[in-house]
């Protein structure tokens, strides 16, 4: 009886595992197969077509990570080490709740609230920091810029980074923390000397997971960003490069023939980048587990 149960369980679990791998292989196969005509037909043209999209994808995700990571670490530390438990628990639920909001809602929030509200700030950036290429301007009149898209993405990836970082921060060995305090360290010194080094690889892998999500996010970017295809470092203008995912979502319904192959080729690039980022994150997490 037990033997049967064991066999059944191991069979089901194996099947589930194999199914996941098969799905991944199937997706990769589909992408390569469908993208192949576009790749073989005009590879330089295709590269020129995908380059602005890849550039936009990376820029939007980079802004998101630059904003979200420091904030997520601060929130995670607050929950794990600073806030009284009575506050910490509800706060961590609230942060998790951010992850439950559909991306369409984030997009609408970005275009209806954040964008218009940030027009003044973006004009200010252009006036006072215009010497930096990022704020060269002319500033957008509607706020539907790369900067705002990046901020929206930052809010979206905040929960996952916070959750991973917090779960590792609370595991910091008590003896290390108490040792630091026994040596006369203040709370900040204790965090700096024990919690942060202990959680360093967790922070890195959490950021990578966040980056992966930001790279692939579709709806919010599709709604917020004003796109006209140019590669530019200017983050506050109207003419932005689109991101791969948003471009596919917006263009697919009207495309036919070779245009579909080109879109799928762009999807293949995104798939490769996201896969690489996620595998890097896993590698870092694994190294942490071995210590």
């Amino acid at each position, binding site marked *: 009886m037990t033997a049967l149960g064991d066999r059944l369980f191991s069979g089901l679990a194996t099947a589930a595992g194999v199914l996941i791998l098969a799905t991944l292989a199937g997706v990769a196969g589909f992408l390569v197969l469908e993208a192949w005509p576009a790749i073989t037909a005009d590879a330089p043209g295709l590269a020129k077509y995908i380059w602005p999209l890849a550039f936009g994808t990376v820029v939007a995700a980079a802004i998101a990570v630059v904003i979200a990571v420091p904030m997520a670490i601060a929130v995670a530390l607050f929950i794990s080490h600073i806030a009284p438990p009575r506050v910490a628990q509800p706060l961590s639920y609230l942060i998790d709740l951010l992850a439950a909001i559909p991306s369409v809602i984030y997009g609408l929030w970005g*275009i*209806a609230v954040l*964008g*218009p509200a940030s*027009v003044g700030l973006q004009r200010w950036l252009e006036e006072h920091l215009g010497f930096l290429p990022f704020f060269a301007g*002319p500033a*957008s*009149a*509607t*706020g*539907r810029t790369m900067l705002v898209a990046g901020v929206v993405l930052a809010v979206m990836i905040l929960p996952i980074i916070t959750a991973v970082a917090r779960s590792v921060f609370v595991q910091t060995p008590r003896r290390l923390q108490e040792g630091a305090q026994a040596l006369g360290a203040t709370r900040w010194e204790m965090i700096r000397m024990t919690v942060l080094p202990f959680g360093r690889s967790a922070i890195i892998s959490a950021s990578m997971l966040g980056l992966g999500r930001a790279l692939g996010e579709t709806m919010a970017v*599709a*709604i917020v960003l*004003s*796109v*006209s*295809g*140019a590669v530019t470092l200017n983050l506050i*203008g*109207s*003419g932005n490069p689109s991101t791969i995912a948003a471009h596919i979502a*917006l*263009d697919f319904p*009207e495309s036919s023939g070779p245009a579909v192959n080109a879109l799928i080729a762009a999807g293949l690039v995104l798939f490769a980048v996201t896969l690489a980022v996620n595998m890097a994150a896993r590698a870092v997490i694994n190294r942490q587990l071995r210590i």
Partner: protein
Amino acid sequence: MKLNRCVWLLAATLAIGACGAENESSQSGAARQAEQLSGNLAGAGASSQDAAMQAWIAGFGAEHPEVTLSYDPVGSGGGREQFVAGGTAFGGTDSHLADEELTGAQERCQGADNLIEIPVYISPIAIIYNLEGVENLQLSPETLAKIFKQEIKRWDDPAIAADNPGATLPGERITPVNRSDESGTTENFQEYLAAVVPDVWDFEVSGDWPVKGGESAQGTSGVVDAVKAGKGTIGYADASQAGDLGVAAIKVGEEYVGPTPEAAAKILESSLQTDDPGARVFTYELARDTTESGTYPIVLVSYLMACTQYDTPEETALVKAFVGYVISPEGQQAAAQNAGSAPLSDALRAKLVDALQ
């Protein structure tokens, strides 16, 4: 007994319609079938006239409850293709049939004079803007083209001032907003610019916006929202969607004309009809460069394609009744209410009704 008769009737009249409760006696039921229209009609085509088509389907369905109509907004190209192939009874298209498709459609209808192709949906495209303190913006075609080409960058540009004597124009930056998706609105707007000021608008006209670096938005509602959200923005959209935004009057001849339904419908009067491909084909080369007084030249005209004869007399009668309803004052009014289109002028309607007799 009643049920039996009903089933018998159903079998007998399967081709033209379902069994109705009013078929109390077979005699009067059969007599009524002759005048009471019933059956299915399928159409497909331009998405621009989809909202109007829904109004027509609803209005026609209210008069003839036994009729089931459907319209698939697959796009103009798909609409023409399916109509020529005989897959649909009627079709909608933004650009009229030409060349092989025209001959194909004539063959499908079994004769050049049996093909119906008439303008049914005329929609003015408004130049919408959001600029504080400027109520009645007036623009000459050249200024308009330069604004959208991003050559005129500020609202207090001398060219705009020259079009608006006496107005106080702020030194605000101009943000032109265009469609990010491929669209018939973009194509018609560009056709106008290319026809009137070809020196300035030297792009290849298509449904895609050619100028880089401007603000872009998805769909008509996206453009309207972007213009609303920004300051100093200007864009183009179906006039019915302009809402409470400012709408610019465009210089035609010596006067400035706004996108009213009457002014838009008038363009067909000054436009030349294309070389006569059949007695019931009314297609136009739109005279975008018209100087006719009171005409608004930035319009989208969408056509209805149908035949005068079909395989069965029932279908023929049904299509005839539907086409008649679409161009009737009620039909055009329904479209105006539902889709904000410009109703056909009485003169044109009289011509169409004559031809369709």
